[in-house]
């Protein structure tokens, strides 16, 4: 469904991504893990063309979207939930959701809104509150809801667990699971490797802007290298203990 091929991105002379290829098939939940500064956000931003691509291609549903503008990409069926939520704090929850559907006809927005409120009841309960008043977890739900307003076929998620308590993280992921089961395709990037891989079918490991591992999520979860680097498991040689 989405195929990013041999992508190179640089910012002000610094190479952020080198020869990165990832793909997500229809209905798949794919996680890309990596530490801070590995280039995860850059990858999503360059797919959405928020930052430019130096080299490489992006094919979405058979269409070459490499050079599409961001709004054109959204119209073609992709939506991004940015890192740190980025909800409009001074607007109400409902207004935030409406913003997500601003390129859609009014009737469709109304239907979609009802659908999303049904899925995230808390957004309905707090509909008229300012988004800035919501808790972190609620803001994350709002950010997801806002992205869904454009009726995407693929959802790009940037660091959904950032700054959230473990219980809330689980709640967010459970929602993503429900969305995935309903047929939504998901590409997620995360530092929190254990959650990201637990819910995904496949995964990639990004390090210094390069993919250095990939495979089934279960395969990566069990890998010693991933455990050491991303799951915080301490490994010492026998003579060091």
């Amino acid at each position, binding site marked *: 469904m989405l195929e990013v091929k041999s992508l190179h991105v640089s910012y002000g002379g610094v190479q952020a991504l080198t020869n990165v290829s990832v793909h997500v098939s229809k209905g798949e939940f794919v996680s890309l893990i990596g530490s801070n500064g590995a280039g995860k956000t850059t990858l999503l931003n360059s797919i959405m063309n928020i930052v430019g691509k130096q080299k490489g291609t992006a094919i979405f549903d058979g269409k070459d979207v490499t050079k599409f503008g961001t709004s054109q990409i959204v119209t073609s069926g992709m939506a991004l939930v940015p890192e740190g939520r980025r909800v409009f704090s001074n607007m109400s929850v409902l207004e935030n959701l409406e913003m997500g559907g601003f390129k859609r006809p009014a009737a469709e927005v109304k239907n979609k809104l009802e659908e999303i409120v049904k899925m995230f009841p808390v957004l309905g309960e707090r509909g008229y509150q300012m988004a800035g008043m919501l808790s972190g977890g609620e803001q994350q739900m709002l950010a997801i809801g806002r992205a869904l307003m454009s009726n995407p076929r693929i959802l790009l998620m940037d660091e959904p667990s950032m700054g959230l308590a473990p219980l809330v993280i689980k709640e967010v992921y459970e929602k993503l699971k429900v969305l995935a089961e309903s047929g939504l395709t998901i590409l997620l990037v995360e530092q929190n490797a254990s959650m990201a891989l637990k819910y995904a079918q496949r995964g990639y490991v990004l390090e210094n802007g390069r993919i*250095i591992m990939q495979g089934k999520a279960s395969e990566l979860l069990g890998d010693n*290298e991933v455990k050491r680097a991303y799951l915080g498991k301490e490994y010492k040689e026998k003579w060091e203990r």
Partner: protein
Amino acid sequence: MGEIEVKYWQEEEERMPVAERKVFQLERLQTTVNRAYRKVDFYRKTFDELGLKPDVISELSDISKLPFTNKSDLRENYPYGMFAVPLRDIVRIHSSSGTTGKPTVVGYTKNDLDNWNNLVARVMTAGGVTKDDIVHISFTYGLFTGGFGLHYGAETIGASVIPVSSGNTQRQINIMQDYKSSTLVATPSYALHIAETMENMGIKKEELSLKYALLGSEPWGDKIRNEIQERLGVIASDNYGLSELMGPGISGECCAQDGLHINEDFFYPEIIDPLTLKPLPEGEYGELVLTTLKREGMPLLRYRTRDVTRIYREDCVCGRTLIKMEKPQGRTDDMLIINGVNVFPSQVEEALSKVQGVSPHYMIFVRKKGALDAMEIKVEVTENIFFDEMKKQRKLVDDLTSQFQKILLMKPKVTLVSSQTLERFEGKAKRVVDER
């Protein structure tokens, strides 16, 4: 209750549309190159010396820009120099015998072993094995990858595995008879030896329960296959592997018995001209070169197998979309170039097997005749024919010459010699004398 026929082990991978598989292949190739460069000193040095960057792979065809890996590289980095993970992540070590030099060592991580098991399970499933089979393994266990590779592949399928290992053929036959082994895993020559021993013991194939034979680790042709199938009452399939790359499980035959499907989602195959080292198009004969795509413990880039074959894509009746290779014809180490034509001693053997009245003992002589090369093949005949009339001898020479011409695509001089006159060899035979 009817039996459920299992045709594939990992159907999604084995029947994936070729274009979709290519997406995985490119991603895995890029990842493998990144890992090899970062984690293996040998590759980092080689890349740096060549001024190559690991991001040289934008398309699959860019693989031709990568350097080759030779067996000598593995020897020079003996024992652990080619490993891409710390030793504590290695859970199994195999090694070559080291009879022709320093041994080569291979290491497997946990994931490598899981993958290996599944790849062998694919090949065995393609050869007919199911969880209901009783698998008799007469490969040597130990450092050699064959025994353990097939053993765990069969266990992964859920078959009952009898790890007999090699030796004591009479006992092996008794075990097969008593334990009702339904699948034999062996070298083709050992399978034939079992058949001969059974005859000597007066045991008929009907007294055994054998249905399948998975044979490999040495070159063999259809003549031997038919004989094994006939004498043991089995369906015999070929499988191919190389210890340096993993062991068995690289490719195997399906029910069509027409080419070996390469597990190309794990091993990227290329065919190169062994002289110019340039890649050859699909379908042409040359040396098989393999790149590991998912191996963690010891990634190998463009490993020169020295095996001569061709790879080709065709719609297979079995439904697999995996590319096929022919049974290897021989090794590039043994290849002779005579007036620009590649000749393998194995082709001479093949020609001999098609003519009655000659023994399998032969010698090849290559000399200069003016500017050209001349090839002479001396062949031992069985005694009764040699002392027979001239006419029969003439006919034999003509038959041999036309067989050679058909198979070697050139006309050698054929000389008949009486039996027991050619040199005999203990161990590896030296059948070529190149006097050029």
